[in-house]
Structures are given as structure tokens and as C-alpha cells.
């Protein structure tokens, strides 16, 4: 069980709903371990600042997380958490293992820019 303050995705159906109903989504798929906890905390801190992004976590050992573990974008990943960024339901970026706040912010700013499209 992930005891974070993020919204949890418990099933593949939850995951499908989250990425289909929201334009910008970040999902952290991990465990309660040293490489994952800092990423959850960063996401919790950034929720307020990035209101146009929906932040979720998903337990790596939940069999339903195959929706993330089987993504072509995570091929070669050998470190948790697998953090996936979705735009309009499509994967736009995926990272493996611990990330810094600056690294996460850089991805959010680049992939989920709030600039109004012409």
C-alpha cells in the first residue's frame, strides 16, 4: 500500500479513466522505498503550483500496474519509480528511478506548458 497524499490508481480501469479524462497527467509507479518517496513528496508539493496537471501514484507490485510496466517507453528501465507523463492520453515522457524537483519541474514545464494554443 502506498501511504502518500497523492490520489491512488488502484486498477487498470482507474488508470484508463485518469488519462482519458484529464489533459495532463503524471503517474508515479513505485513502492514505499528510498528512490520513490522523494518523487511522491515532490509531486505532493507541486500539486498546488501545477493545478493544470493531475498527479497520481500506483503501486508497482499491484498486478494492475502492468498498464505502466508494459509500456514500450519503459523498456530498459531497471529502477523504480517509473514516472510517466501523459498528454491527452499519450505518453510524452517517462523516467526511471529518483528525480530531483528541478528535473520534475523541467518536464512539467516543457510537456504541460499552459501557453494557450492558437
Amino acid at each position, binding site marked *: 500500500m502506498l501511504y502518500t497524499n497523492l490520489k491512488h490508481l488502484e486498477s487498470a480501469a482507474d488508470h484508463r479513466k485518469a488519462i482519458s479524462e484529464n489533459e495532463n497527467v503524471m503517474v508515479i509507479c513505485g513502492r*514505499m522505498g528510498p528512490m520513490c518517496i522523494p518523487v511522491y513528496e515532490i509531486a505532493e*508539493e507541486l500539486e498546488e503550483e501545477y493545478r493544470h496537471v493531475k498527479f497520481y501514484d500506483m503501486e508497482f507490485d499491484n498486478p494492475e500496474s502492468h498498464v505502466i510496466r508494459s509500456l514500450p517507453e519503459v523498456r530498459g528501465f*531497471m*529502477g523504480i519509480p517509473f514516472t510517466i507523463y501523459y498528454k491527452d492520453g499519450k505518453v510524452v515522457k517517462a523516467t526511471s528511478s*529518483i528525480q530531483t524537483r528541478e528535473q520534475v519541474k523541467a518536464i512539467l514545464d516543457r510537456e504541460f506548458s499552459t501557453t494557450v494554443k492558437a
Partner: protein
Amino acid sequence: MNTANHYDAIVIGAGPAGLTAGIYLSRARVRTLILNEGAVGGQMVLTHEIANYPGVESISGYQLAGIMKKQAKSFGCEIKSNILIDSLDLSSPVKQVKLTEGTVYTADAVILTPGGRSRTLGVKGEDEFKGRGISYCATCDGDFFTDKEIIVIGGGNSALEEAVSLTKYASKVTVVHQFDHFQAFEHAVEEARNNPKISFLMEFVITRFFGNEKLESVDIKGLASGVTRNFKTDGAFIFIGYVPNTEFLKGKVNLNQWGEIIVDSNMKTNIEGVFAAGDSIAKKYRQVTTAVADGTVAALAASAFINELRIKNKQPAEI
């Protein structure tokens, strides 16, 4: 001076030392702000299970950090985490901390508890293959290396204990260490030496990581021979100790040759009104319990300093 942003004490760092200082200061009615650049709890949150914290049989570091944070807040301590410090003035009577987003906080006393972080090798390819074969956590990533051949870099307790733990998954573990002897306790060395899956490369260093989608090999240099050769491996776990997070304190307080803050037995630094505690100070043993003890002493000493300052400021000026 902006009085809303002036505190009696500012604590920099929210690991067990900083949170304990926050608890003691706030409970003593000292207006306290904790500023923290990383996750609240520091290295403690990275510990899966703490079984030697007196009074608590078993708890995760994450949970213990959460309780300490709640306790500090319950006494009125303010905590701002995931901030970035832009500049620091510790030498003036009123200490000043400026954040990168522009906010300036001032205080009569500062307690430095910035903690430490895992040391990295700093060789080419390390960043590139982090999470793609290079790991710093056996518990987290061990199962990705089931039936694979891996290396463990380091010679301390963590390196040897994690090497043994990784044999649950890996078919072969090679421990690579730069010295001709281990720094680990004898029982850890013995356990590793008795494990048939573990072999050792002593007096060798890794000079580069190679691969495509994931790590495939390393360049390994023999320190005795000076010869470098390529060594095939599916993974590399790095456990080469910790470094104090004190880069931002260089030239501001006295540090020793390893960058650790020098304090006296009351946790005072060489600067009046500036104290330090926890893993970033010069000391031998680094445990949650020692950090908590340091934080207590620093808070009591800072509290006494602030009280003396209050009394001094109330006294009429000498004629």
C-alpha cells in the same frame, strides 16, 4: 526588517535533528521556522524499517518522520519544505536567509541541520544509466536483476550487507573496492566472504559506464597495475558512503576537511548564534538517535542564547 518574516530561530533542514530542534524550540515558545530543501525527514525517510529507535519497536522512516513533523507543527513550528536557498548571512547579529523565489527570512539564531546524501562516483555514464542498470538501493531495484550478473561498488557496511542481500536475486555479485581492505564491520565482511555467489575485486575503481538502452559494461582500473579493462555487467549498485550537504556553508562557518560542520559539545559553531546538529556535523556515529540527541542539545543551547539576548535587549543602556 519585515517582522512577519522575523523568527527567534530558523532551522535549516528537516531531518530528525532539525525536526527535534523544531519540537524543542517551539515547545519553549521560541518562534521557529524550519526551512528544508528536500523531503521532510531527510535520510530517515529512506530507511525501510527502523527497529532500534528506543520506545518504538518497529516503524518505517517515512512514518517516524511524519510523526516528528506533526509533533513540531502541534507546538506551532512552521515548516517550509522543497525550497531553495539563494543566499545566507550568518555573521550579522540578525541572521538572514534568502530563498530563490525572493522571500527573505531573518532570525536571532540559526540551527544548521542540512544532513547528508549518498555519494556518487562522478564518472562518465553514471547519470545516463541511473535507473537503467545503475542503482543506489538494493531493496528497491534488486528484483530487476534476477539471474543477472552485477557489481557492487564500495567496501563499507552498506556495500557488503547489500551485496549479500542482492544474492537473493542476482546469479553473481562482484564487489569492487578501491582499497585492499574493507571498512565494514568484521561480521559483515565474513558474511559476504562466506557467500558463494560473491567474489571480490580489491584495489579496483570504475572509470566509466557503457551501454545502449541499459548498462552493459564498465571500465575497471586496477590501482596496483594501472591497467584498465572492460568488464561485462548487467547492473551496478553504488554504496560509497555519504557526503554532508554543506557546500552552501563554505566560508560561512568552520568546516573540516570533509566539509563537516565543526561544533563544540553544545552544538555551537564558530559564529555567535549559529548552531549545528545531525549528520552534517563532524562526528563518528550517524544514527537517527544521535541526530535527535544533537538536535535537542542545539535547540536548548539556541534557546538559552535567545533568552540571554532578550534579557540583554531589555536592559537599559549603560550611562
